[in-house]
């Protein structure tokens, strides 16, 4: 599905990603974990075309690198951000309706010469917007609210709804659960599992080890810009080097007492 081969990213003199190769299988939820600064978000940015890289990235056999960021969306890529992209004075409806661009409806000739069809398409799209919110446990009343007035947990969900509006085949999520409460995490988990059943592939950067072990089919551990481990979460989390790398970021905690979340997974 998604094949990343020998990916390298340099920022000036800093070698942020070194020879990273990841393969994500269709219909799986693939976790990407690692301590802060290990290059997770940079990897996502390289996939979506926001940073320059060398190496190859292919989606369903089609090369992504070399394509402008907006063209990659057309190839089936949707992504969210750790801090949701939410222009303050845009309404939720305005944001979601930008998705009209990708679904190739409402062409100018339809609007001009077949207004009844355009009206129908608008109606269908409005329903999709509503459904995008309700399926993530949000109220459709949010549609007319401005993004600047919405709570951060809801914003994360809206960002995911936004990414789904373009009907991606690969959904890339950057720390979706940070800022969410347990109930919201549960809603998201259910939705992701439902999406997986319906054939969507997900690449997810996630700190919450519990979430990772619960929903991911495979995980890749990044550390210092390279790949440390890869495999099913339960196996990977038992590897001593992974535990070390993970504990490295939690200052003040002794290596003998791993964090509770990690303990539970064993």
């Amino acid at each position: 599905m998604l094949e990343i081969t020998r990916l390298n990213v340099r920022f000036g003199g800093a070698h942020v990603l070194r020879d990273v190769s990841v393969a994500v299988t269709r219909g799986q939820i693939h976790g990407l974990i690692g301590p802060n600064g290990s290059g997770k978000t940079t990897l996502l940015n390289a996939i979506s075309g926001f940073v320059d890289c060398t190496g190859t990235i292919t989606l369903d056999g089609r090369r992504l690198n070399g394509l402008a960021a907006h063209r990659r969306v057309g190839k089936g890529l949707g992504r969210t951000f750790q801090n949701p992209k939410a222009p303050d004075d845009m309404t939720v409806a305005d944001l979601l309706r930008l998705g009209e661009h990708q679904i190739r409806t409402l062409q100018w000739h339809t609007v001009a010469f077949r207004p009844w069809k355009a009206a129908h398409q608008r109606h269908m799209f409005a329903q999709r917007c509503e459904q995008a919110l309700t399926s993530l446990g949000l109220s459709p009343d949010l549609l007319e609210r401005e993004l600047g007035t919405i709570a951060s947990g809801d914003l994360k969900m809206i960002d995911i709804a936004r990414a789904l509006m373009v009907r991606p085949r690969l959904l890339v999520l950057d720390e979706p659960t940070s800022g969410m409460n347990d109930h919201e995490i549960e809603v998201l988990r259910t939705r992701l599992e439902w999406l997986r059943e319906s054939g969507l592939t997900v690449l997810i950067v996630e700190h919450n080890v519990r979430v990772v072990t619960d929903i991911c089919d495979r995980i890749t551990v990044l550390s210092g810009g390279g790949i440390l481990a890869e495999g099913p979460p339960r196996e990977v989390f038992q590897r001593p080097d992974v535990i070390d790398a993970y504990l490295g970021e939690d200052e003040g905690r002794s290596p003998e007492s791993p964090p509770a979340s990690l303990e539970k997974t064993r």
Partner: protein
Amino acid sequence: MAIFGQTIISAVAAGAIYALIAVGFSLIYQTTKLVNFAHGSIAILAPYVSYSLLKLGLAMPVAVLGGVLAAAAFAFVMDRVVLAPLRTRHISVPILATVAVAIVIEAVTSLVWGSQPLYLESLASDEPWRISGLSITPNQVVIVGITGAVVLPLLWIIATTKVGRAMRGCAQDPEVVTLFGVSPARMYLLSFVLGGVLAGLAGVLIAPVTGLKPTGGLELSTIGFSAAVLGGLGSLPGALVGGFLIALLINMTQVYLSAGYGLGVAYLVMALVLLVRVRGLFGDDIEAVRQV
């Protein structure tokens, strides 16, 4: 009373032209967050090109169309060549670049066409109709008609279509529209070309009234900017209303105070709005202006 009525009539005609300029100004601002100080200069390029096309023996409508297309083409090139490479810089850099473009246009037009004013024929007759003591020229009717026929559909398109939404989205956060598969660069280009068409139209409409001189560009930019700021930068209906209000103010000043104060009033309004109510009448967000 007759003088008052007459002033209103010429203000409406002038207002239509200023509105064309101001809407273009606001359109570019609402997509790119850029204040295009070359806007008025692009506007006067159109009548200069029309003038030369007329000299070549082309018919009036063809010459006018050629002039407008030339302005749009210039805006296209300006976006691609001058502004696109500066997009990653701080917003003040491309804004200064538009000032540079304005200076270049002024210098080049005086080199090519000379600094003496040129005169261009009106699109329609200037022979007035007398209606109950007031005179209205066919040309004034044509000016208002063309503005209405161009601006109103454009406002509707920007307000209701997905392209309009994408243009507005660009100003808010280019990465968001990118994630919807839309190229922000293309939206910037589109706003510039549309702005160029509006500016060119305004140019060919105003040149027969005021005469054509290389410094006219700056004058138009000032008036257009004042009108756009008055209406609230980035609000297209605001720019439309602002254009008419500024024309009314300028014409009233010229008639009742002194002919020389007209442009001064435009500057004064701009300064007052920026000082007292940066949002203008209908605008909401004007951060870029604060930054400049």
